């Protein structure tokens, strides 16, 4: 079947089998490998993208369902060489380690901050509960999103936490 959609502000058209998942379309057909696959039960969120502005697990949507949709993947976040504040937050607050969950986590955070510009820690944790991370323990991801939220509101982000005293025994 023929599908047409806008991906990262660019119009694309392709012929796909109905069974092709959106995540495979993005990765295999368009070469946008920033969107990852971490499971097949729609649990891990590594494949999160924005579909018409809503965070969506691209492994749980068919490419044909995205016909006519506007898709934003991690590759489309930075514009004119300028990182998105969420990307910057993840970098500044050590919100990633192996980087595999990161694109999905970042997209979820972008979606969350669209709906709630000043989330509490509980709201952030609740907002990213569809994205699994095996490395960080989430603590610094929360700090990264707080950093981005502050930046997006035009405020100074809180300082990093790792500047505390070490005890020399």
């Amino acid at each position, binding site marked *: 079947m023929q599908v047409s959609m806008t991906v990262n502000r660019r119009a694309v058209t392709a012929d796909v*089998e109905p*069974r*092709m998942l959106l995540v495979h379309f993005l*990765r295999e057909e368009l*070469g*946008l*490998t*920033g*969107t*990852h696959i*971490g*499971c*097949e*039960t729609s*649990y*891990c969120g590594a494949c999160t993208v924005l579909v018409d502005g809503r965070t969506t697990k691209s492994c749980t949507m068919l490419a044909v369902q995205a016909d006519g949709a506007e898709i934003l*993947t*991690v*590759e489309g*976040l930075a514009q004119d060489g300028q*990182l998105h504040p969420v*990307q910057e937050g*993840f*970098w*500044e607050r*050590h919100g*990633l*380690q*192996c*980087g*595999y969950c*990161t694109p999905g986590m*970042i997209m979820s955070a972008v979606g969350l901050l669209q709906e709630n510009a000043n989330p509490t*820690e509980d709201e*952030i*944790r*609740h907002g*990213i*509960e*569809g*994205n*699994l*991370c*095996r*490395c*960080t*323990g*989430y*603590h*610094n*991801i929360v700090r990264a999103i707080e950093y981005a939220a502050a930046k997006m509101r035009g405020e100074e982000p809180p300082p*990093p*936490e*790792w500047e*505390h*005293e*070490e*005890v*020399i*025994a």
Partner: protein
Amino acid sequence: MTTTVHPKTSPEVGGIGHAVRRKEDDRFIQGAGRYLDDIVLPGMLHMAIVRSPIAHGRIRSIDTSAAEQTEGVVAVITGQMLAEHNLAWMPTLSGDTQAVLATDKVRYQGQEVAAVVATDPYIARDAASLVFVDYEELPAITSPQQALEPGAPVIRDDKEGKTDNVAYIWEAGDKEATDAAFAKADVVVTLDTHYPRSHPSPLETCGALADVNPATGEATIYLTSQAPHAHRTLFALVAGLPEENIRIVSPDIGGGFGNKVPIYPGYVVATVASLLLGKPVKWVETRTENLISTGFARDYHMHGELALTSDGRILAMRASILSDQGAFYADAQPSRFRAGLFHICTGSYDFGAAHVTAKGAYTNKAPGGVAYRCSFRVTEASYLIERLVDNAAWKLGMDPAEFRMKNFIRPEQFPYRSPTGFVYDSGDYHTALREAMKLVDYEGWRRKQAEGHPEGKLYGVGIASFTEVVGAGNSKEYDIAGIKMFDSAELRIHPTGKAILKLGVRTQGQGHETTFAQIVAEELGIPYTDVKVQEGDTDNTPYGLGTYASRSTPVGGAATAVVARRIREKAKKIAAHLLEASEDDLEWEPGRFFVRGTDKGVTIQEVAFAAYTNPPEGLEAGLEDVCYYDPPNMTYPFGSYIVVVEVDPGDGTWKVVDMAAVDDCGVRINPMIVEGQIMGGLTEGFAKANMQWITFDEQGNCIGSNFLDYLVPTAWETPRFKLGATVTPSPHHPLGAKGVGESATVGSPAAYVNAVLDALRRAGHPVENIDMPVLPHRVWGAIQGVAVKP
């Protein structure tokens, strides 16, 4: 004594002690990492594996005709075909053998039976479901106890003369001295507990992309590998390929945690398929495949005993283990230690005698026994002693902190020889525990606990004061499959003063590209941003054993420091030449040599340029060296974790309401990265204590084959952590650093479990033990006074 550590270098140079942003993150936050599944080669084919649906059965026949006739299918590979090339079996990392594709029997659910290669991954999966295997089902053995019963069916009948299911027997320590100490004990405390089967399940599953050039026979194998060099050697030995024709490339790795240490059948089959078909063949596991077939961890049934005096001193320890090895004995561990480093189970405590016995059994479960964010079974060891110590304090009516303080190895006893033969390099356990108690307000929580919870819940406070053993080797004692455990670093300073550092280890998220650049920055004063760190490609990095068991900083980091110092020595000669001064008159400050007492000096960058353009007579050009570092000893990081929980007696649920973690990993190179490692580990410890395990039904079906059943914590449940640090440098590491990647996974599980038990005990429920995961129904059962299964 409290002091703040001040870095010696400026923030721009970014040497040791600077919490600089990670260099690798730029690509990851933009989706520009390059993981295995992102790699596409021209003409690439896709492979899917046909797996056994049953746990134990004899293969009567395999019908591949329907699969072969599917449009788009290029080949169907069976064990028989591999057997013709003598590749149906391969060695494991523990000297056992493992089936690549089953020829005789299947021995666990999910075992590899055949593989389909097709032009498209969808078609490969379609055709895999058309491979029909006829099995004669055999009774499944699902526990090691069952496996060792007389008359149990022999799982490994492929091994000639094998008449039982014993995988190994091992012991350590001094039985006589231990027995004598127990004879003198006032009190003996015992504990039987199962450290359940778990799986590292990194978010990226395992995979391979094999590209064998049909003309030259050169094989480039992209592999999700924590140990690419060791894997190349093993590939050469298994497949009989000349080693110079094998290039392993370990691209960006989406987490490893031990899961990517072994060689898996899929890797071998993809390589054989590429060799036979002359095209690149990609195989990437699904999550289910990852969970049911690749390296599990733990699964130790442990019995422990402590001999005590009535005033609260430990005299001796006994431990015996029955391990569930699955169908093939495949622990990733040094070959002389059959139960890994479990014999470090005397932990942080000073007593005279210990004796450990271990036995492993084959069962109809997936093989593995990998060191899941753990240094070869030290996690199980630490768990056993920390649970035993807690039970001892409870039985003696002592506060668990006070009991620990009384029995800790004292600072002046280091280096300390443990009763099972480890030599702990350095430590100050009392200070770490005191700091953790301050950080969490231990006394405050005890008061609240005594006052009672406002809503009728139960407060509990749990402690774990662990000692880890990481950074293998030395190479005399430690090896993997016979390859000695040193590691390497190769450093070249380019003429413009920028550098490239190549290592034998392989990062999977630990931040090597930053940390190791910072070591070079510290030693040579070259800004860390000017140091490119390269790992993972066996053609372009020096030989090393890889990254696991928290060994990268202890071994690869030491190699980096040593090679940088060697380069500084050579640089000094060049500087003397440039400054027309004697080497003896030169002094070093980060990034610059200068003539003592003058402002005359040259920067390292100027020296680097001269190394290629104006070297002194008699000195080779260039500024480059390599170091193979063989550590004199392991490093022994330690720490104290205190967890406060709130238990709901109505449904047995519990939640962490406070937690303090004080870690001592010696000198911290990048404090930000160190804390990130610790928080990740605390979360994995929580996962295992709270929810994450793999179990099996009586037929050997895996319960926990996907993320709906294998529970991995989200941001919501994960506790919020307070971190503290003490710094006791390693006396033998060139930088005083110890490993840290695994401390928190090793140390924390006991703290969570101790906290829940403390809540129950202080509410009047005399509960000896709850096995992990401490599931709500188990807590509820303990409160009701009934043992609740499963």
